[in-house]
């Protein structure tokens, strides 16, 4: 099961398993994002390269207007994949323990 919802504050909440068969469902939300926005990973168990692609594509589009996605509360396994992908170089990843980093 995969879930994606948007809160009143615009924060995106992901849950379950974000695999290649959920790209369309996720893009329907991410393609509408136009401002800097937080993405809550606390209930996301799994993301594949297809899911990483959706995030990267969104980040590229937003960065053209100086905006970005801020990824929060990732579990360790998901975070390891972000690290191997070197996505920590292109995303602000916040574990929720620290105050938000300065936005670049």
């Amino acid at each position: 099961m995969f879930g994606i919802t948007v809160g009143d504050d615009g924060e995106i909440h992901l849950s379950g398993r974000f695999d290649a068969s959920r790209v369309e469902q996720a893009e329907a939300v991410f393609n509408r994002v136009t401002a800097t926005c937080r993405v809550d990973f606390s209930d996301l168990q799994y993301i594949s390269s297809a899911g990483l692609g959706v995030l990267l594509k969104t980040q590229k589009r937003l960065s053209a207007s100086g905006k970005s996605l801020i990824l929060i509360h990732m579990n360790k396994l998901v975070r390891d994949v972000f690290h191997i992908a070197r996505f920590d170089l292109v995303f602000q990843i916040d574990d929720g323990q620290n105050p938000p980093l300065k936005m670049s």
Partner: protein
Amino acid sequence: MERMFRRALASLDEVFNFMDEALAACGSDPASAYAVNFAVEEFFTNMVKYEPEGDHGVSISVEREANRLTVRMVDTGVRPFDVTNAPAADLSASLKERPVGGLGIHISRELLDSVTYEYGEGQSTITFVKTLET
């Protein structure tokens, strides 16, 4: 354990159900299970994309010997596509220059101990090994 899957993106749910069952039967730790699932999805979706019209299935088998998991994926009636020869993704490129695709095979290789590819008589076989963490 071994099972055959229809060549379609929509089979992914069934693939993951099978993998959950097989990995639990093998006593996999969560990190190894993540790595194996990531690689299975990557190779399976590549097989679907590469030969979308194929009407044959893809077979996946999972075995444990000592503390090593071996997964074998067999795709029949296809042309050769050697995943172990895929070019390395440029992960240091700036956001603007980073390509959106091409990451998955690189990450899979990083997560696994080894990936081998064999081809013969229209059949592609990808075999990969992951040493369990516990």
